[in-house]
């Protein structure tokens, strides 16, 4: 067990855990931020996507000991009231079916638009390919990303 200082969603937080603990389980078990989902545990499905200094990373493969002073943002911290342009576009297109993967999809999409505000279809595909949607909402996700990119 070690003590770690984290910056999560703009707040400074202290937690005491095993240094190997993936940040996913720190968020879910310790901080009760359960919007970040567990899907595969091997960074293959994207359900656990968070931002580390604004870049999309898979939290299931990121040990807390590597986070350091980098800023962690989860779906809960993406916007005040779910009013990030990407979240609004998700509602406009009524994207979710089961909804389980969608926080990961939204975190990947917002990170993409941050560096590339007007992505092409191919650029969306390549940025989003690590996020599986088992229900098959891919066409709606792409439409929502395009709507968000216009706002």
């Amino acid at each position, binding site marked *: 067990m070690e003590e770690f200082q984290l910056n999560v969603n703009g707040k400074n937080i202290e937690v005491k855990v095993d240094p190997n603990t993936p940040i996913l389980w720190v968020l879910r078990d310790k901080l009760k931020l*359960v919007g970040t989902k567990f899907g595969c*545990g091997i960074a293959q499905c994207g359900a656990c996507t968070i931002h580390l200094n604004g870049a999309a990373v898979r939290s299931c493969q990121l040990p807390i000991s590597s986070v350091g002073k980098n800023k962690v943002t989860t779906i809960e911290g993406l916007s005040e009231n779910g009013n990030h342009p990407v979240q609004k576009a998700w509602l406009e297109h009524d994207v979710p079916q089961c*909804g389980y993967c969608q926080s990961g999809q939204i975190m990947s999409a917002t990170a993409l638009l941050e560096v590339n505000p007007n992505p092409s279809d191919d650029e969306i595909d390549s940025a989003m390919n690590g996020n599986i949607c088992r229900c*098959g909402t*891919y*066409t709606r996700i792409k439409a929502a990303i395009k709507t968000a990119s216009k706002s």
Partner: protein
Amino acid sequence: MKIIKTSIGRRSFIKRTTLAGGGIMLSFNWLTSCDMTPNQVKSLPKEWFKINGFLKIGENGLITIMSPNPEIGQNIKTSMPMIVAEELDANWDDVIVEQAPLDTSIFKRQIAGGSQSIRQGWNSLRMAGATAKAMLVAAAAQTWGVSKNEITTSNGELFHKASGKKSGFGSMASLASKMDIPKEVFLKEISDFKIIGTSRKNVDGSKIITGKPLYGLDYSVDEMLIAMIVHPPAFGMQFKSMNTSKIKNMPGIKDVFSIKTQLQDYSKQWCDIDSFNEIAVIVGETTWQVMKAKKELQVEWEVAPEKTEKVQGWSGEFTNTIPEGLENTSDHMKMMASMDNKKTQIVRQDGNPGAMFKKAAKIIERTYTCPYLAHNTMEPMNFFADVTDENAILVGPIQTPEAMEKSVSSRLKMPLEKIDIQMTRMGGGFGRRLYGHFLTEAAVISKTMKSPIKLIYTREDDITQGTYRPTYRATYRAALDEKNNLIAFHVKAGGIPESPLAANRFPAGAVDHYLAESWELKSNISVGAFRAPRSNFIAGAEQSFLDEVAEIAKKDPIQFRLDLLQKAKENPVGKNNDYDASRYAGVLELVREKSNWVNPPEGIHRGVSAYFCHNSYVANVLDIKIQNGNPIVDKIYCTVDCGIVVNPDAARNLSEGGLIDGIGHALYSSMSFKDGRPEQQNFDTYRLIRHSEAPKKIQVDFVKNDIAPTGLGEPTFPPVIGALANALYRASGRRYYNQPFITDKQIVG
């Protein structure tokens, strides 16, 4: 207006003081927390008046409607309350939706399965709204001293035209809740619908996109422990012993033991699949601590002998034998191929197919196969359990809460009324969560630990547990005469452990001489319903074969099918044909028109298919273009006849999902076995369709009619596989017979 006798169970109208008997729901009310807009939150009523089991109305006009069935992503949590709101004449903006508790004395068939929620809920949901409206009208009539017949309703308000009196539902709710339950109610004419047939957003949408706790995996209570399991690494193996000394003292670990999911001599219900009855369990404080210990646990497994189990079938209890052995996919393929030359069960025969095949000018014979598939819901199996001597509270994702309540009751030896199963939103179902062994396991673990626990499967536990879509094989033969008329048709289909054959489905009924044969082979690899069971293979096989027959007969593939359907309509062969030939032809004609079938765009290769299952009809035209040597699904035109469409945009979303799901599994997904061991253990080896592989465009069109709603969750999945195979053929010149169509070693062309 249609007048009908109300047949809602009396208990629907009992004015209950709490949602569930006793106080056990109270500490868990986050699950039934409402889905409210910010305006609704501000205006929460001071008092709710329960009108019946489906709805309550606040004095300020806010209405809570219960959504009875489990939500797995099919969006019934929005569409079922829409049906109640329609007949109530509510203003949808005033409606709050709550997930109903499990109570089948009020809510019939609280199952997510068979694409039946809307179809089978249709009448009771309409009646719940209509009776509540009638009671509001009666309350207004009494208050205003006028006849009920002079009162009209609209958009959450009651009107008396002659006197100019009007009132919101809220003002009449208190009195309405005390009114007699009407013996008969009026249902609306379909043409008067104002909510049904209009697109309404997912009531959980805002919570999903902001990451609010909705799913079983998100559920927690104070002092809850985390449990994980270790099951045998291969089918045909069982637990022997384990050495717990290495992990018992690891940080956070509370206990390590083995459990039996079911007791000996238990008579299984259909939903009681347990691939591995005895499993190792590790319980600890946090998920990561338990995961770490799980990796270190040393378990000794042994080869399991043949075993028998008692199963409750539709026609009484029977004994099922599970063979011993460590099975291999390569052996499965050989065993299935060997059935081609064996005598099998004739399920249907019309005319004299043997004679017709002898005199045929051409015989076309093709064989199709598909592998086992894992469901891979994005949310892995999990369940919360808090079992005490007094009661059992179980919370989590389950498609069959009612049946699983019985399983848990039997396993814990606890009366049904002391067991409370609460439904969370599910991170996918696809049939996997019809089988609730994980729920029973969670209950047993909680009882053993005397503590609330949450059982979590890792992805590897989930994917290697079984309950798979079976592996199937089908051989089709068609006889053509000199003029290329289809004179006889023969299908011989089977699988491990069940056959995919639906012998009374098209083209049965459309061919004078028809033979359908079926076979099954035993295995110890467990299977379960997977989105559109059996149809999910046989539709693609049949629709690929018909395409090839049409080509050899030199006929347009759509016209070829329409001609057969015309015969089935005018002069059907046999009496048990399970489809309506007119509606079948209807979706094909509509997709021909919508896709402009006769004039495909340049560079586009097209395939067509149509299928009937889950009471609904679907046709597809699928367009492929070749880009840098790779096939790209450019567009899918999908036409659906599922009767009245309750929530059109959500229905389109569900249909798009079914199409993408069908394409993905047919192209990429497969579960294979070596010495009983699943060769795919996670998403690095099990391929699911991804963003870049999804169709670029999907257009879904619904046939407009006034037929009561039929299934939609499953019917778009099966036929698209045929359209895909047929389009791939036109793009590449090669027919695709064996799923998955694309493997690492094989590219299109």
